[in-house]
């Protein structure tokens, strides 16, 4: 056993209201610079939809992630030799047009325009050329456009649906959509990292955050293809790849990442997981259909005496073990089994998990009345979003995995409704609990953490132990008088 700790996350899709506050919080801090305007380290997509960049899930187009060969993972995009052969031109690199051309407006015109009969307008100008442009696409161009024959109809996840299920997404009254917020998954078998010819990308040992060393990156741009989630981005101005840094400077000072902190729907949970790094390769190379299960098996029980003993022996600080026990992510993913990784078939073993959404409830017409959620509590198969759609998204097509989660989510609702409204017979409640294989204690815990969590419940940020790391290197106050506190070299502008 080789125990590592990893800061991980759960997004509860039922709670996302699609407000994009998370994206803006991230953009304000990290990607306002030249060359990064088009990057959305956090983005929110409408599903069904094509997403950002356009069709990112389609690995026939982008060749991201891994495939399995002889029980081992192998990059889809290249092997070591062809990586070098393709270095002058990456055949699978997404282009700016696959994202969108970023723009701003000439706001000055609003004030400076000469007097005339018409209202002055602020014309859009390209953030790349500085010239006037027609806006043709944006980072959430398909926002709320479920049912659209251009966007929704091309959703790659439809491949596994049958004709009837597909039609359902496009018929009036049964049309449906939900939001999928995405950040870098800080995978434990990152495709971006493995694809980088320069070896510039690395995973931090203590917390599992995946970073691109800006000093080592040479713009070979293979990581962009290697990541199946398209969560590394190319800064065309600086000639460097950049990606979500999981707000490590915030986390190191005890704050949640900006997108987590600002989340209006409070859908985001953060906590540490312990996992066994010895089994990464076998999990990532496991046969299709068992990848998600194998990944969840890697995650260790922080209450298990054996694991605790071994973790301590391997130098994992006591405080981190303690936080692993308090982790909300552990609860959702392992204790309650209601969160799954996004597209496990990409084999990067992503460490961001999603609780599939149960709502919206189907309304049934009865005469002139619409009854909401009539038979809905009866069977998850009546869910308005076909189970198979979520299975394509979260469980390699394994519908039973989704059904099991739905049964539990339904049990929570039935149980809580019986407690608060009281119009559900006890027998029906017990049946729901039995079917879901759960009990009132677990239900209450799920309910509390889903509906009533405080900031401290949602973000259980482990101590990052930077003080221990820094004392190894140099005292930040050493050069306070000469170079300045925290600097090793004078922060003078170079050439």
């Amino acid at each position, binding site marked *: 056993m*080789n125990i*590592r700790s990893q800061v991980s996350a759960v997004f509860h899709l039922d709670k996302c209201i699609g407000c994009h506050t998370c994206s803006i919080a991230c953009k304000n801090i990290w990607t306002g610079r030249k060359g990064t305007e088009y990057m959305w380290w956090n983005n929110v997509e409408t599903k069904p939809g094509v997403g950002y960049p356009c069709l990112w899930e389609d690995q026939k187009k982008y060749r991201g992630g891994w495939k399995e060969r002889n029980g081992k993972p192998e*990059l889809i995009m290249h092997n*070591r*030799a062809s*990586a*070098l052969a393709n*270095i*002058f*031109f*990456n055949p699978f*690199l*997404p*282009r*700016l047009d696959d994202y969108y051309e970023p723009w701003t407006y000439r706001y000055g015109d609003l004030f400076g325009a000469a007097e005339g009969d018409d209202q002055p307008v602020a014309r859009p100008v390209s953030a*790349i*050329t*500085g*010239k006037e442009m027609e806006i043709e696409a944006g980072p959430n161009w398909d926002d709320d456009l479920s049912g659209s024959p251009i966007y929704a109809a091309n959703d790659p996840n439809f491949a596994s649906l049958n004709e009837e299920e597909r039609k359902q997404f496009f018929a009036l009254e049964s049309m449906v959509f939900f939001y999928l917020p995405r950040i870098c998954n800080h995978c434990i*078998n*990152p495709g971006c*990292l*493995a694809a*980088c*010819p*320069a*070896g510039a*990308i*690395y*995973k*931090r*040992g*203590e917390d599992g955050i995946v970073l691109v060393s*800006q*000093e*080592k*990156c*040479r*713009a*070979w*741009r293979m990581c962009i293809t290697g990541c199946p989630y398209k969560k590394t981005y*190319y800064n*065309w*101005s*600086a*000639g*460097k790849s950049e990606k979500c840094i999981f707000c490590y400077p915030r986390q190191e000072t005890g704050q949640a990442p900006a997108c987590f902190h600002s989340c209006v729907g409070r859908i985001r949970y953060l906590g540490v997981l312990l996992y066994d790094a010895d089994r*990464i390769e076998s999990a990532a190379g496991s046969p299709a259909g068992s990848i998600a299960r194998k990944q969840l098996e890697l995650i260790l029980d922080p209450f298990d005496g054996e694991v605790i003993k071994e973790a301590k022996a*391997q*130098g994992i600080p006591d405080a981190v073990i303690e936080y692993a026990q308090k982790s909300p992510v552990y609860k959702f993913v392992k204790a309650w089994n209601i969160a799954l990784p996004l597209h496990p078939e990409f084999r990067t073993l992503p460490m961001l998990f999603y609780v599939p959404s149960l709502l919206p409830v189907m309304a049934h017409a009865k005469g002139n009345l619409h009854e909401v959620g009539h038979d809905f509590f009866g069977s998850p198969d009546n869910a308005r979003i076909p189970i198979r759609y979520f299975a394509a998204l979260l469980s390699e097509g394994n519908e039973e995995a989704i059904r099991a989660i739905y049964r539990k989510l339904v049990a929570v609702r039935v149980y809580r409704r019986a407690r608060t409204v009281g119009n559900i017979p006890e027998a029906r409640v017990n049946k729901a609990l039995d079917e879901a294989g759960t009990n009132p204690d677990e239900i209450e815990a799920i309910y509390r953490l889903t509906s009533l969590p405080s900031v401290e419940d949602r973000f259980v940020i482990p101590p990052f*132990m930077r003080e*221990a*790391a820094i004392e*190894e290197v140099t005292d930040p106050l050493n050069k306070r008088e000469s170079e300045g506190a925290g600097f090793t070299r004078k922060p003078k502008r*170079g*050439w």
Partner: protein
Amino acid sequence: MTDSVLFIAFPYVAVVVAVAGGVYRYFADRFSYSSMSSQFLENRMLFWGSVPFHYGIVIILLGHIMGGLFPYYSNFLIVNVFHMYTLELGGIALGLLTNFGVILLIIRRLVYPKLVPETTLMDWVILLVLLAQVLSGSYIAHFYRWGAVWYPYSPVPWLKSLAHLDPQIDFITPLPWIIRFHALNAFVIVGLIPFTRLVHIFTAPVTYIWRPLQVVIWNKKAAR
């Protein structure tokens, strides 16, 4: 006098500037070491420009280096007519390929508005110097045939004498002006390396062949 400046002083200056400048830039401003790829902004023409240019120039450069390092070994190649023709034709073909590539790379930066803000003055300088180099190279290959025969006996001894710190310009000065230009322009390129994106040549990621596919960095432990 001019000849000494051009064929003795200038090459030394260029090499010193390249090494000192490159090393200084590497330690003072490592962030700026980048190939500055613009494939993200323009993809199609880059393929036809970048791939022929790079493959052409890399093989031609290797040819020059091998011919320079093992001048007498090339005798083995040229005693056989078939080998000679292959070398000559291959060289001319690669030269044309490289010309084609670099010209496309230049046109590309002129016609795609998105590339304009990303193109610096030094990008233009290096593109034009490279164009001059591959054009003159192809001219030489065409009008002064059988380079594999004469290259080891006149430019190479001059280069060698420079390397041995015993410069002998008699090997190079009698050659036709275009060949002298080609030799000098080569040192212009060398001298420009630290001031342009050409530094990426020296960070070619060969280590990818053997590096572990996953990299984990710990604060305190070397590796685990």
